[in-house]
């Protein structure tokens, strides 16, 4: 079965996120009040051919550990849905 997996790779909290800061500033300047804790990372979407959603998730988890996220600076979150 084909499973669509959404991955969010986010800079680890505690690390400075200049891009998030820049966006927070820009939003304030555009007149959006009350925005805090902006963090910017990568959204990666992929379709995986696997026996089950769980299997797809496990496989993508391993992709994240090996390639998609940098263990030194990033955390990742997965969501999978049948495609």
């Amino acid at each position, binding site marked *: 079965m084909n499973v669509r997996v959404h991955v969010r790779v986010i*800079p680890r909290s*505690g*690390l*400075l996120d*200049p*891009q998030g800061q*820049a966006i927070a500033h820009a939003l304030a300047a555009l007149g959006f009040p009350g925005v805090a804790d902006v963090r910017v990372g*990568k959204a990666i979407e992929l379709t995986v051919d696997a026996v089950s959603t769980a299997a797809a998730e496990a496989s993508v988890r391993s992709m994240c550990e090996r*390639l*998609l996220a*940098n263990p*030194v*600076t990033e955390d990742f979150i997965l969501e999978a849905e049948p495609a």
Partner: protein
Amino acid sequence: MTRVAVVRFPGSNCETESLLAVTRAGGHATLVDYRDTDLGQSDAVILPGGFSYGDYLRSGAIARFAPVMTAVKTLADAGGAVIGICNGFQILCEAHLLPGALQHNAQQRFAARPVDVRIERTDSVCTTDYEPGEVIRIPIAHGEGRYVADEATLDALERDNKVLLRYVTVPGTDMPYNPNGSMRDIAGICNSTGTVVGFMPHPERLAEQELGSDAGQRFFTSLMRRVASGVAA
């Protein structure tokens, strides 16, 4: 003669000037393809600057898996000289041959300009020909050069004398002296023996008087001397 391999990944850009800098310093330089699985009889390897695999995902993230990297690790483990310049530094960090990571410049823009860096350690494979504390001006050209690591790692780098180059301010400059927001102004680091080194600036680009300065050439003469004296290989 000292034999230096310069690796070309798909998207490498600075292999030609790296080869020339080695040749000019009296070494024997050969180009090695990323698909090769050995480095010939090389005493040293340079991972040059550029945009391996387009720098897609994260710079260095894909290149670290290239077949040639196994040989690079073997050389590093054997105490051979491994030098990562710019993209090469990024690859060494991604491959965990050096600690930390290089992230997008704090100002979110590519930075191409000269920087003033201080040589913090003169017993590494490529800095013996500099004076301790000497400040030189060489170019940078990168979008992802902000060195980050957790506090413990940073403290360990300082304690173990593994900071190789640091951005410093020189009177009269009207540019931020730290060009990318690197933590502790780090421009380059090395392992404890000084044989695996990585840095963001490009000494190979400013290594002959015809281009206005040869400030970077001693990286390569140092390498020749160190490797020839057998300390590194």
